């Protein structure tokens, strides 16, 4: 087993052993390995039943029904299918979309593709607390706005948007509302009906499920039109053709079932650990939290540690698996666009860390992290040129 303290659960999570067990029942001779579209024989029908059970489990996590769930390869594909699919389908209604500057690249790059196709996208700047407030969204809406996209929980700083308020103002105006719920689902309650969400993107690997599977949940009524990204055998109502990976979707279903059942207790436990982590780091001079102090998901803590360069800090804590304030999706040393959107200077953005806790994080992990970061900060500050000190 690894001797590294894993605090990068916002990047991905280990698969829960219960999920592994469920997936294994869909692999190998005698298991439910069949093609779920091949319902002419028993193995196919058994696989189909497992897929449909998983669909219901995913739907239940977000207040939806099974028929609203379309399987994808992850949240990136789900975001792309939602944004590109809806915009292309409804382009005759209007060509204006609204989103925020701190969305995941899966949304931002899909929006840029739409711009290349002639759509106009307004990128809202969050406040210094990292949150785009509903009145900002409302002010950006136009008669030709066809879609608003706003993430539930920000993947870098963990702040939580008021999805319900934005959903209601979109619903009142007949504007589609898309939510990237990759980071929030399973950690915080979200309900497609209550929150007036038309399109909701999920991925399994952020909630202790397998990588390579996700889902796009679509509103129940009236049915939405989407132009598919892929063309093929007609699976998933022709919105996402291709043979379903039964073991993957069953794994996602089980992960969602567990997350729903344990959400309240687990969020409280993880939130308490995050608070203890912050308490420990805040004792160091020059450490500030990024994002709103209270409107945040339980598992993500982003901090800026002044007077320390982020890459060297990461290097100096080899026993910790954590993320820096550099661009999350690449190995780039570019400062995080999310932190810059909050008004952080490049230097402070580079001096930032994201620590993200999860189901298997322990109090001992938190104490180890506090100790290791404290030692590294002290050492790196000691070798820095004299001058302004935190």
């Amino acid at each position: 087993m690894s001797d590294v303290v894993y605090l990068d659960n916002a990047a991905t999570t280990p698969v829960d052993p219960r999920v592994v067990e469920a997936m294994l029942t869909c692999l190998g001779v005698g298991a439910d390995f069949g093609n779920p579209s091949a319902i002419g024989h028993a193995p196919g029908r058994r696989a189909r039943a497992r897929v449909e059970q998983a669909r219901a489990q995913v739907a239940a996590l977000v207040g939806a029904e099974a028929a609203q769930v379309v399987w994808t390869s992850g949240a990136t594909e789900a975001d792309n299918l939602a944004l590109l699919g809806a915009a292309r389908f409804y382009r005759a209604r209007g060509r204006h979309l609204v989103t925020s500057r701190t969305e995941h690249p899966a949304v931002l790059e899909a929006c840029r593709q739409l711009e290349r196709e002639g759509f106009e996208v307004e990128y809202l700047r969050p406040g210094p607390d990292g949150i785009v407030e509903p009145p900002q969204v409302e002010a950006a809406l136009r008669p030709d706005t066809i879609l608003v996209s706003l993430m539930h929980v920000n993947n870098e700083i963990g702040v939580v948007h008021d999805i319900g308020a934005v959903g209601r103002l979109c619903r009142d105006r007949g504007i589609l509302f898309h939510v990237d719920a990759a980071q929030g689902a399973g950690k915080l309650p979200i309900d497609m009906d209550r929150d007036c969400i038309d399109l909701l993107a999920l991925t399994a690997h952020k909630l202790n499920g397998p990588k390579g599977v996700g889902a796009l949940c679509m509103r129940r009524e009236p049915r939405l039109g989407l132009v598919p990204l892929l063309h093929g055998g007609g699976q998933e109502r022709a919105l996402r053709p291709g043979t379903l990976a039964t073991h993957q979707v069953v794994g996602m279903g089980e992960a969602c079932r567990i997350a729903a059942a344990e959400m309240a207790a687990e969020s409280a436990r993880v939130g308490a650990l995050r608070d203890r982590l912050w308490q420990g780091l805040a004792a160091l001079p020059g450490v500030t939290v990024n994002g709103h102090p209270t409107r945040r998901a339980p598992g993500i803590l982003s901090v800026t540690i002044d007077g320390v360069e982020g890459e060297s800090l990461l290097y100096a804590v080899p026993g910790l698996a954590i993320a820096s304030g550099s661009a999350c999706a690449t190995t780039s040393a570019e400062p995080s666009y999310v932190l810059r959107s909050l008004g952080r200077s490049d230097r402070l953005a580079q001096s930032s860390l994201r620590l993200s806790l999860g189901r298997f994080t322990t109090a001992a992990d938190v104490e180890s992290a506090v100790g290791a970061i404290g030692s590294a900060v002290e050492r790196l500050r000691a070798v820095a040129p004299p001058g302004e000190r935190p």
Partner: protein
Amino acid sequence: MSGEDPRYGEEVRRRMATLPGAADLPPGPGLIVAGAGDREQGAEVLLQARVVGGRAVALSFRAFGCPHFLATASWLTDRLRGHGRTEFEAWDWREAAAALEVPPSKFGRLLVIQDAVRTLARNWPGDDPSTV
């Protein structure tokens, strides 16, 4: 996962383990100092050398920056020990780039260190009153 981060070569890893040369030289005759870079830009270095008989008999550094930058500053404190002003003036960042396997995206940071080395040469004792 193997233990070694492939972004960092052997010399960077060795240097970062203890950062040899990270210190201040004690004040006294023959001490010269030079700084370069800007913390806002992510790389700042302060080099110190003690010059005796026209040679740098001891060097030290303080630095703020990435591991490649810190390791290069540390490496220089050994590389330039025993050399005279001419070698300081002629020192080129490309030598460090090769020795420490610095990726091209960070070459600009090595120029910061080169600036500091050349400033040390300008501050060489006997030539400039900036000698401490």
